[in-house]
Each structure stands twice: as structure tokens, then as C-alpha cells.
């Protein structure tokens, strides 16, 4: 049953990522694109965790954590750049 649930969840997250890519492509403003990238980061973490369960490895958390850290720092750096025209003051 878990295998079935994992497959379903992977499919659903793939659809979610396609929706994010749609927003990333059309996003009228650059802030929309940043938001799309942020959501894309969350969904890709989910995919990594699901593959980890699917293959029952239990070693991909470091990757998930790194993406979470880098995604947050990236989002903040981009918005900071938009706000101030500079990342580090």
C-alpha cells in the first residue's frame, strides 16, 4: 500500500511542478518568478524525500536539507536585490 501511495504522491508532485513551471514561464513580474522558484524548491524537496522512501535508502535528507537552506537564502537574496539594488551592504 505504501508503494501505491508513494507512486500517487510522486505523480501529484510532478503535476504541481508543471504548474510551477507554467507560472515561472508566464509570470508577469519578476516577483512572480521568484515566488514560482520558491515553490519549485519546496516541491523538489518533496520529490527527493519521496524517492528516498521509494528506494528505502534513508540517506537523501542531507540533499533535502541543503536545497531547503539554499532555496531560502536564494529567495531572500533575490528579494533583497530587488529592494535595495544590492545583496550585501
Amino acid at each position, binding site marked *: *500500500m*505504501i*508503494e*501505491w*501511495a*508513494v507512486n*500517487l*504522491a510522486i505523480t*501529484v*508532485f510532478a*503535476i*504541481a*511542478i508543471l*504548474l*510551477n513551471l*507554467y*507560472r515561472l514561464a508566464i509570470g508577469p*513580474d*519578476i*516577483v*512572480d518568478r*521568484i*515566488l*514560482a522558484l*520558491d*515553490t519549485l524548491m*519546496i*516541491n523538489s*524537496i*518533496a520529490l527527493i*524525500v*519521496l524517492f*528516498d*522512501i*521509494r528506494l*528505502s535508502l*534513508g540517506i537523501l*535528507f542531507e540533499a*533535502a*536539507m541543503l536545497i*531547503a*537552506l539554499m532555496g*531560502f537564502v536564494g*529567495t*531572500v537574496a533575490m*528579494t*533583497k536585490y*530587488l*529592494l535595495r539594488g544590492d545583496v550585501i551592504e
Partner: protein
Amino acid sequence: MTASSMPFVLELVISLFLVAGALFALIGSIGLAWLRDFFMRLHGPTKASTLGLGCLLIGSLLFFSFQRGALSVHEAIVTVFLFVTAPVSAHMMAKAALFRGVDKGGPSRNYPDR
């Protein structure tokens, strides 16, 4: 998969967490793709996607804790980290959007003028 050795109830709970998490994240992404202006779109990812990933990670925590016979806390750390950072990045993005005047004539009322 070593699911055959798992009790049925645990399997059911883990499956429910995984599917519920996936559905929440899908709703967040639908909101991101469909809603009319930027500030409405901001609501989807900050709430739904974060909770979706939280559910998923709880399911994963249960799965690996049972598989190894020891509490696996890495997922909990990722979950806490996401719940702490999601509002901060949402706040920063809203600030940047206000600064740039995104969707100023959009459906949102009382748009602050600065």
C-alpha cells in the same frame, strides 16, 4: 521496500500522510497558477505547500523510524526549518512586490501608496 513486515495500521497512517501532503502541495501550486494577482498567489505556496511538505515529512519520519527501529529526526529538522523560513520569505517577497508596485490596479483593495 520492506513494507510487508509493517503492521497494517502503520502502513495506512503513513500512506494517508503521504497522499494528504501531496494534495495540499497540489492545491498550493494550483493557487499559484490560477489566482488573479500577485498577493493572492502568495497565499498558496506559503501555507498549503509548507503544510503539504510537513505532512509528507511526518510520513517519512514514521516510515524510517519503523524501518530502522530508532527515531529518525532528520525529517523533523527539515520540517521545523521550513515552517520557520516560509513566513520570512513570504514577507520579503510581499515587501519587494509592494516596493515595485506590482499589480497596483489589481483586484486587491486598499493598495498602500508610497
